[in-house]
């Protein structure tokens, strides 16, 4: 029995730790507990998880504490439109460890998502559309922008200003009124596997930005695909401005047309005889 006491103490301590950690990440549900997302964010303790049910919300959300904000049914079914169009629909400022997951964000004449002076940020699987700018990021460090769609915004799709150590991966940045992806004075970022197509001006503009890794991106049918200036030590490789499909498909179809003609000839000969 005496030998088992340390084991029992260890188990008790572990259970206490689990209890404390589950207490730390309280779950808040919108609209069951709070009618609006902004009210839920205001009431949340740091580290809280806010789960938003599907539906359309008219709101401006300001996040100044570490929270995990996610939708329950995905971006297509959870739409946040700016209640006051003159401010950002979602404004994350002066905080750390924020996650924004799976929303449609629209209707701001400033930005769909505005991020300032924030560290350890995750923005994933969102659809940011019909704003002046999609995502504006200022003085931000160590962020992960993954699997989002930034399209049909009036100016920039995705704008990083003085932001560093961010990973921008597998996003679709298309049909924006000015530039698709704009890096300005931003160093040590990784831009990987993004589709940046059909933006009115530059697909991707890298300006005064150094030591970035820019690989496996596709820029297609922009005014200028990839533009860089006043930048150094960037690892730019394996980016595509014209995908193979554009060259191969028409040629393949013309060949198919020729084969189809031969097939038709044989078929008509078989039906009608010589």
């Amino acid at each position, binding site marked *: 029995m005496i030998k088992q006491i340390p084991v029992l103490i260890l188990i008790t301590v572990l259970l206490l730790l689990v209890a404390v950690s589950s207490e730390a990440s309280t779950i808040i549900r919108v609209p069951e507990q709070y009618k609006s997302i902004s009210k839920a964010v205001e009431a949340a303790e740091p580290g809280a998880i806010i789960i938003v049910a599907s539906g359309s919300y008219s709101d401006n959300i300001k996040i100044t504490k570490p929270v995990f904000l996610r939708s329950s049914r995905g971006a297509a079914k959870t739409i946040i439109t700016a209640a006051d169009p003159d401010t950002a629909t979602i404004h994350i400022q002066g905080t750390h460890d924020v996650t924004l997951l799976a929303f449609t964000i629209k209707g701001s004449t400033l930005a769909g998502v505005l991020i300032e002076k924030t560290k350890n940020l995750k923005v994933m699987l969102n659809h940011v559309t019909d704003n002046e700018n999609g995502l504006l990021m200022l003085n931000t460090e160590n962020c992960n922008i993954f699997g989002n769609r930034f399209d049909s915004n009036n100016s920039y799709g995705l704008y990083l200003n003085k932001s560093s150590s961010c990973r921008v991966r597998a996003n*679709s940045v298309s049909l924006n009124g000015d530039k698709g992806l704009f890096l300005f004075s931003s160093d040590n970022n990784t831009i990987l596997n993004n589709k940046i197509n059909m933006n009115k001006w530059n697909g991707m503009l890298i300006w005064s930005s150094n030591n970035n890794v820019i690989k496996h991106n596709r820029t297609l049918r922009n005014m200028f695909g990839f533009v860089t200036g006043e930048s150094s030590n960037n690892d730019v490789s394996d980016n595509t401005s014209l995908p193979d*499909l*554009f060259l191969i*498909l*028409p040629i393949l*179809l013309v060949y198919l047309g*020729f084969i*189809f003609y031969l097939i*038709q000839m044989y078929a*008509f000969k078989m039906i009608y005889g010589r």
Partner: protein
Amino acid sequence: MFSDFLPLIIGSIGVVLATSSFISGMQLVRTRKRSFEGRIHRLNGYISIGLFILLFFVSYIGSGFNMIVLLLWLSGFAVILMKLRIVKQRRWAFKYVCWFGVAIICMWIYIIYTHMPLT
């Protein structure tokens, strides 16, 4: 997802038919005798015109009114009508119809290029 690719699929069928129609048309002009080529040419030609009109409805009406795009569609249709008119005039057919056939194939390739789903 399928609706994103529908215009591209219709356009691809259009290119195949326009190419087949062009080759049979060239054979028809070269041999000057009525044979299977005439039937293939007409069949493919009229189906591709039908596809052109279908694509106009699917693509243009789906994406909303735009005067420049409407003018482009109408000019494409004008090329098809002019080609039909020239074919009926045997005197002009041998001289100009090959150019119109090439123009129609180029037009279909352009349609594919503009309808590739990229987002």
